[in-house]
């Protein structure tokens, strides 16, 4: 590798074959280079008489913005594309945390430069902090194949591998349709939304698109005063109900029985989670002996009412 000084204008930035960074922003570097100079020289390579960048995209663009010339660089003339790309990868992984999209880009380019699959699994995946399995390799290669707009969102949101897996089960058109809601949710709910939608579609033998065309969903989307996040939460509630019709029916019957009893605020009667156990639970709070006795008396009245037995009824016996 040769150390030299060149004018940054000589670098052909259009050739981005070694570029790892997905983001364009270099503002944060401009200040530090202005104050301290370029401390870490970019690495360049010569290809067909042109100088192209191996690493240091943001640094070169910051130098250009500052009209600095010449700048110190390393020029690598002998290594092939795969070897040079490995340099770019090591430089990036050692200096910052990469997003999912950047990791996906690394894997797909390294594959494009001819890296054997074994190297990708055993060396590159662990280097990127990804479990070294074929399954993960394929997942990340699929991310690399997303369209630029979707990649941009995935880069910004940096979802978990589980969310990505769930997301990639949908077609690009279906993913685009979910976009306004999906990314407003937290990661657990993102995964739940995607999986529940897929499962409802399979249960009802219709496409996800048809699931989303349900009048109730159209209604809630039409409610303009709702924030996208609120719409997403309602969509998820709606899907949960369709996914678990029996549980939903039981919960409705139980809630109806509670409502008939007109239980006052501060007293909570609940079935065991998912109606799995036989027991109901009761919760109430009090601040004094008097309040305690008064609550007990009210509870006793509640228990004396015939409708109280409805709480124990099997809705399917009706």
């Amino acid at each position, binding site marked *: 590798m040769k150390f030299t000084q060149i004018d940054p204008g000589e670098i052909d930035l259009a050739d981005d074959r070694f570029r790892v960074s997905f983001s364009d922003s270099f503002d944060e570097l401009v200040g530090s280079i202005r104050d301290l100079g370029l401390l870490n020289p970019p690495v360049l390579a010569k290809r067909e008489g042109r100088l192209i960048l191996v690493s240091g995209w943001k640094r070169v663009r910051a130098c250009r913005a500052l009209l600095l010339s010449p700048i110190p660089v390393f020029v690598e003339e002998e290594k092939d594309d795969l070897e040079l790309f490995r340099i770019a990868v090591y430089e990036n992984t050692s200096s910052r945390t990469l997003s999912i999209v950047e990791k996906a880009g690394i894997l797909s380019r390294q594959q494009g430069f001819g890296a054997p699959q074994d190297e990708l699994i*055993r060396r590159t995946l662990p280097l990127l902090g990804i479990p070294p399995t074929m399954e993960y390799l394929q997942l990340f290669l699929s991310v690399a194949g997303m369209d630029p707009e979707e990649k941009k969102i995935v880069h910004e949101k940096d979802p978990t591998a589980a969310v990505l897996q769930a997301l990639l089960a949908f077609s690009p058109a279906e993913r685009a349709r979910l976009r306004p809601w999906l990314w407003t949710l937290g990661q657990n709910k993102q995964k739940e939304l995607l999986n529940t939608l897929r499962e409802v579609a399979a249960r009802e033998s219709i496409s996800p698109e048809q699931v989303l065309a349900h009048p109730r969903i159209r209604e809630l989307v039409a409610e303009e005063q709702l924030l996208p996040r609120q719409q997403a939460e309602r969509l998820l509630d709606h899907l949960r109900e369709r996914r678990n019709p029996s549980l939903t029916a039981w919960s409705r019957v139980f809630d109806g029985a509670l409502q008939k009893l007109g239980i006052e605020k501060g007293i909570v009667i609940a079935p065991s989670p998912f109606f799995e156990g036989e027991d109901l639970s009761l919760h109430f709070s009090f601040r004094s002996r008097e309040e305690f006795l008064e609550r007990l008396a009210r509870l006793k009245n509640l228990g004396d009412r015939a409708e109280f037995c409805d709480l124990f009824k099997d809705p399917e016996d009706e």
Partner: protein
Amino acid sequence: MNDPALTIERIFLDAACLDYPLTRRIRERLSGTPEEIVQDPKTFLEEYRQKRTDPLGDGKRALWLTRQKGDFLKPCPCTPHYLGCRYVTINLDLNCPLDCTYCILQLYLSNPLLTVFVNTPDLWLELDAFLGRRQGGGQVRIGTGELGDSLALDPITERSRELIPYFRQHPEALFELKTKSTHIQNLLTIDPAPNIVIAWSLNAPAVAQEDEGGAPPVSERIEAARRVVEQGFRTAFHFDPLIRHPGWKEGYAGVIRQLSARIPSDRIAWISLGALRFPPALKEIMAQRHPDSRLLYEEFIRGLDGKFRYFKPHRLEMLFFTAERLREGLGREVPLYLCMESSEIWRRVLKKEPAGEEDIEGYLTSPAGLCQFT
């Protein structure tokens, strides 16, 4: 069902295990199958998993002969918050050549290969010690079908020819071989004993066809059971997992009719019933390996143990229906028990409420017809 000798494409041999008699026997049975001697098992297993898209599927066609370095015997883990039956499992082989969509081993085993632990001499020592400690403690139920199918590899391992004579000498154990296969050729050459039970997992024909990849049809399993009964063995059946599917009632009722017509009830040691249940993490594996399985889209809730289970009313309906058909077909003397269920479900399905696991163990080890809960 295919002969395992025909489906195994490669044998991997732990270099430390070449001299065991079982290694030699298997190599003889599978002579001509490509072999590879492995010096570093840990790296080998790691790499085997890493390099494959479906290591579990590929592993079903590769045999790994190695040593059991831990204990062969383990108490059946059952599941928290539900009633167990104090079963003891013998972990002789891991994995099985069949490929059931719901198989829990897809999640539990990090080693995807068909693994045969060849250090049988260590097994006998461990069994002697275990049974010795239990002297006078009542009969223990013990079996091999927990981490694999008890007979699926029997044509090449011939384990049954060693295990049955061993347990014949140990009436303090009630030994069960549990299978979906029809590989009974070795059993038909062995003398039976009252404490040996050959058990089959049965399911509705539609489930067997769609969710039990590579397993023989249920009618063939019942026919295999009939033949071992004819040989003098006692048999048992496991309707587990019961799965809801279109026409499930007729599916299970039909199998029970076949069973009642072909197996005398006094030769049935027990029948277990269990509705499908599985840890949430298995669902992701199922979605990848069996994306078309309808099981992924059933209505499940999280049980008290955190596993996915059918919503209780659905479970009750299935268990009750199946138990009633079994009682109609086979009489009330055949002991029925529920696998991994609560005392509420026991009470509502079987009209019995065991006082605890010891009670269930006593119920299942007492002679058929005398079973009563304390």
